[in-house]
């Protein structure tokens, strides 16, 4: 194997599993340490720079970082139920406990740079573009058909998960930068917009169309059958405040989970979720399913809706065919009807939550924006530029429905592209991230970070009493971590950004690091092909998604291999190293944002 090139930003970035997995590459361990130090304003600020909506995301993020978190792997076979750090809910701790974040809030330049950008839709992707560009002097105007901004954050995510005050606050920071949001304005023609004096247009219009179901009885019982996302937004904007006693929710994604839990709060006593496939294959996150079940909502699986039963238009129930999984000769998975009789679930109303679609009826076919067969725009996947070089897409409008943090990540990249376009630079040349690697040594065995490893298991977020929670949709279910729980949870973080850096010429091969390492990460052995090396490390290395850190040849001709997989970043290797060949250095990476400093960078 070749010696590892630690100068390449990706190498250590990958070691910070959470940051690598976060679409916006939030420097997670840094903000967790700040929380542990009680510096909530600073912790919030780091989040605000990276993900723009820390308070919102701290309650609602899809948290791709958590399945990636190293803590889950190191607790494997050490704890009954290995669990990642509660990265997401710690974000909320920063948001809830900050006292004076405004002092850290940057302001937009006094004078604009004379460039004008239009954003369609006021969802998280557009708001991110607007924030990044207004900070460097652009004049940004956002158009949204809804009365209030924030897109689906406001219209879809129910209040019991996300209080409106949090949305207002975080949209407020962006408006405070001078971004103009024109609410209640629907864009009906992209062409017309392009004819105005905008230097670029960002389309952050989301995936606004809920998929319908076409089975017998759909038209007749239409009054009692609602499209999930339309119904949720009617609830959010106060047009709907009640539902019947017996409700069936069709679908297994997060919309279905929000529909059923909302129904429970608006009068639904017997709310049932029914999915076609298996419980485990549901699109909703495990915690969303847990939350629904916890609120007394059964989830029935392997049932395919066949008919809506009604009495002259008055809904009576839904009939389902019972299916099972079979694999055909080619090994393809199929749902096949069983011998069982169809099952009827009596109900008064149905919420259909079986998917979302994109729709751009307002984009003229001759305005230069080409579309794929899927109905999605043809885009460059890194620059988000469409076939009309002045038009960019992001969020759910770009590649179909995803989530808030992806919308934010798209927004950052699109903002860079727009800035480069407006500055006359090549849009496809991308600026590199800001990277820093600094020793954390303070004394012989003292580090700037707390290197002791906590044995605490993941803390549960306290909930409000269910009787109260189910009575009022505005009552936030989660109370959030209190101070003690927050500190315990923060200490579970392994500080994966504090890297073990090895300087081969200093090593005297005394074995001290190998001997002390609690996780058997370090091996001195002969070099060879990666597969063979992984076999003969001190602890057999099976997780090939994690890199091996490889040194150059040492005095004895051997090579130092460090398996990054389950390193605790405890720094004991560096403490036991007599020559300082090992050092603990903090790797801080901030992705490039739109701005003058990076305009000409590669």
């Amino acid at each position: 194997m070749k010696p590892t090139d630690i100068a390449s930003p990706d190498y250590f970035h990958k070691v910070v599993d959470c940051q690598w997995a976060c679409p916006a590459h939030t420097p997670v361990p840094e903000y967790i340490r700040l929380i542990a130090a009680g510096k909530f304003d600073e912790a919030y600020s780091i989040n605000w720079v990276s993900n723009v909506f820390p308070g919102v995301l701290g309650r609602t993020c899809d948290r791709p970082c958590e399945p990636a978190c190293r803590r889950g792997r190191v607790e494997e076979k050490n704890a009954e139920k290995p669990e990642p750090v509660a990265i997401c809910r710690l974000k909320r701790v920063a948001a809830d406990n900050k006292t004076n974040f405004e002092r850290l809030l940057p302001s937009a330049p006094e004078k604009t740079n004379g460039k004008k950008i239009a954003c369609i839709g006021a969802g998280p992707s557009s708001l991110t573009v607007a924030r990044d560009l207004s900070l460097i002097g652009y004049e940004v105007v956002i158009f949204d058909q809804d009365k209030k901004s924030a897109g689906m954050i406001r219209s879809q995510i129910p209040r019991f998960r996300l209080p409106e005050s949090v949305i207002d606050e975080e949209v407020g920071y962006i408006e405070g930068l001078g971004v103009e949001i024109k609410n209640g304005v629907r864009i009906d023609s992209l062409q017309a917009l392009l004819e105005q004096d905008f230097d670029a247009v960002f389309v952050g219009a989301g995936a606004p169309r809920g998929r319908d179901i076409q089975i017998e009885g759909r038209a007749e019982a239409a009054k009692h059958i609602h499209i999930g996302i339309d119904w949720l937004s009617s609830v959010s904007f106060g047009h709907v405040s009640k539902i019947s006693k017996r409700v069936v929710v069709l679908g297994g994604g997060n919309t279905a989970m929000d529909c059923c839990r909302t129904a429970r709060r608006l009068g639904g006593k017997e709310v049932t979720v029914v999915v076609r496939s298996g419980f485990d294959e549901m699109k909703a996150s495990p915690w969303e399913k847990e939350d629904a079940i916890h609120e007394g909502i059964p989830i029935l699986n392997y049932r395919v809706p066949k008919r809506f039963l009604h009495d002259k238009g008055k809904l009576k129930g839904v009939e389902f065919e019972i299916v099972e999984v079979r694999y055909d000769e080619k090994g393809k998975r199929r749902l096949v009807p069983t011998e069982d009789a169809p099952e009827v679930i009596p109900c008064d109303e149905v919420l259909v939550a079986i998917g979302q679609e994109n729709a751009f009826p307002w984009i003229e076919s001759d305005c230069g924006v080409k579309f794929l067969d899927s109905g999605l725009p043809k885009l460059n996947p890194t620059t988000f530029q469409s076939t009309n070089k002045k038009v960019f897409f992001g969020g759910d409008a770009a590649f179909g429905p995803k989530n808030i943090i992806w919308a934010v990540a798209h927004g950052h990249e699109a903002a860079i592209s727009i800035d480069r376009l407006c500055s006359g630079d090549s849009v496809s040349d991308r600026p590199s991230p800001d990277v820093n690697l600094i020793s954390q040594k303070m004394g012989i065995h003292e580090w700037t970070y707390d290197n002791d490893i906590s044995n605490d298991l993941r803390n549960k977020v306290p909930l409000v009493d269910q009787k109260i929670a189910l009575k009022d949709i505005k009552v936030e279910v989660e109370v959030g971590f209190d101070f003690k729980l927050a500190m315990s949870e923060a200490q579970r973080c392994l500080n994966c950004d504090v890297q073990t850096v090895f300087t081969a010429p200093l090593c005297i091969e005394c074995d001290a690091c190998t001997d002390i390492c609690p996780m058997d990460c370090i091996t001195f052995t002969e070099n060879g092909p990666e597969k063979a090396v992984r076999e003969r490390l001190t602890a057999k290395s099976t997780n090939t998604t994690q890199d091996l850190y490889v040194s150059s040849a040492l005095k004895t001709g051997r090579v130092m291999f460090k398996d990054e997989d389950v390193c605790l970043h405890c720094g004991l290797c560096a403490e036991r190293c007599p020559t300082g060949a090992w050092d603990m250095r903090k790797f801080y990476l901030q992705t490039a944002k739109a701005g003058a400093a990076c305009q000409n960078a590669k």
Partner: protein
Amino acid sequence: MTFIAKPKLRHPELQRNKHGFTRRDYEGAVSTLCAGCGHDSISAAIIQACYELELPPHRVAKLSGIGCSSKTPTYFLGNAHGFNSVHGRMPSVLTGANLANRDLIYLGVSGDGDSASIGLGQFAHILRRGVNMVYIVENNGVYGLTKGQFSATADRGSKSKRGVENHSASIDLVMLAIELGATYVARGFSGDKSQLVPLIKGAISHRGAAFIDCISPCIAFNNHSGSTKGFDYVREHNEAVNFLDVMTPRDEITADYAPGSVQEIKQHDGTVLRLRKISEDYDVHDRVAAMHYLQKSKAAGDIVTGVLHVDPESPDLHDTLGTVSAPLNSLGKKELCPGKSAIDKFNAARR
């Protein structure tokens, strides 16, 4: 030393032995020795050897004298018995313990100062008596704990950290051990665990006085150029005569070696020591030839390592004394106080 305890978390793939223990369960408290001290590597090798031999830690007794080396029993086998005795006096305490309870596994840990200076007499007598034990000297050529004075194993002509030359002749503990009748004698190096771990396993499975001289660089006071006990010097002059595989009765014995290149020695407990010869003419059974070879190599400046002498058939101290086979603490009042008539008979036999 480090300020934090070694984290409890361990590698998820660590295997458990028949007692349900992983290697980590054979550890002790976190070391307070200097970073990089060879002694810590020897502790790690002992941990590995005990784990691989599946020893029940509570059946092991660790005894030591005074010195950095003698501190190390605290850092391995936290669940074993331990006795940190007086400078140079580990052998007599170990002998007494062994006489009282022959069922424990005895591990004497000492330093070159502890064994070759103040404790040289004790060292000699425990070996010649054939006490069933493993005696490890963690040999760094200095008194580490008292800040690096030359010890009696420092080679003539080697230099201290401050450049002062040693004019006294050195004591070669391996030569002495063979001379004094130790029945398993080996030399290892803390910087080569692939060699050291089997040497320790072989010593533990040996019945009788097993002695290991383990060169163990003192990072703080004896790892400079001019030292003959530093990492670089030992690596340059290391001449292994054989490579040992230890096969317990549980291990499947495979035979995939060229005839004549391997020597197998069956130990008392059924363990087989398989020696892959590196030096063709070295015979571990021949004491006189071994001593001759060692003298010659020493004169040539080589540090001979490996298994240097084994005699698997010799009696141990209990055999020669004809002591009772059960540990004294398991004897009842009847055995311990056999009554007047038994005493009278005993005395009569001596008149």
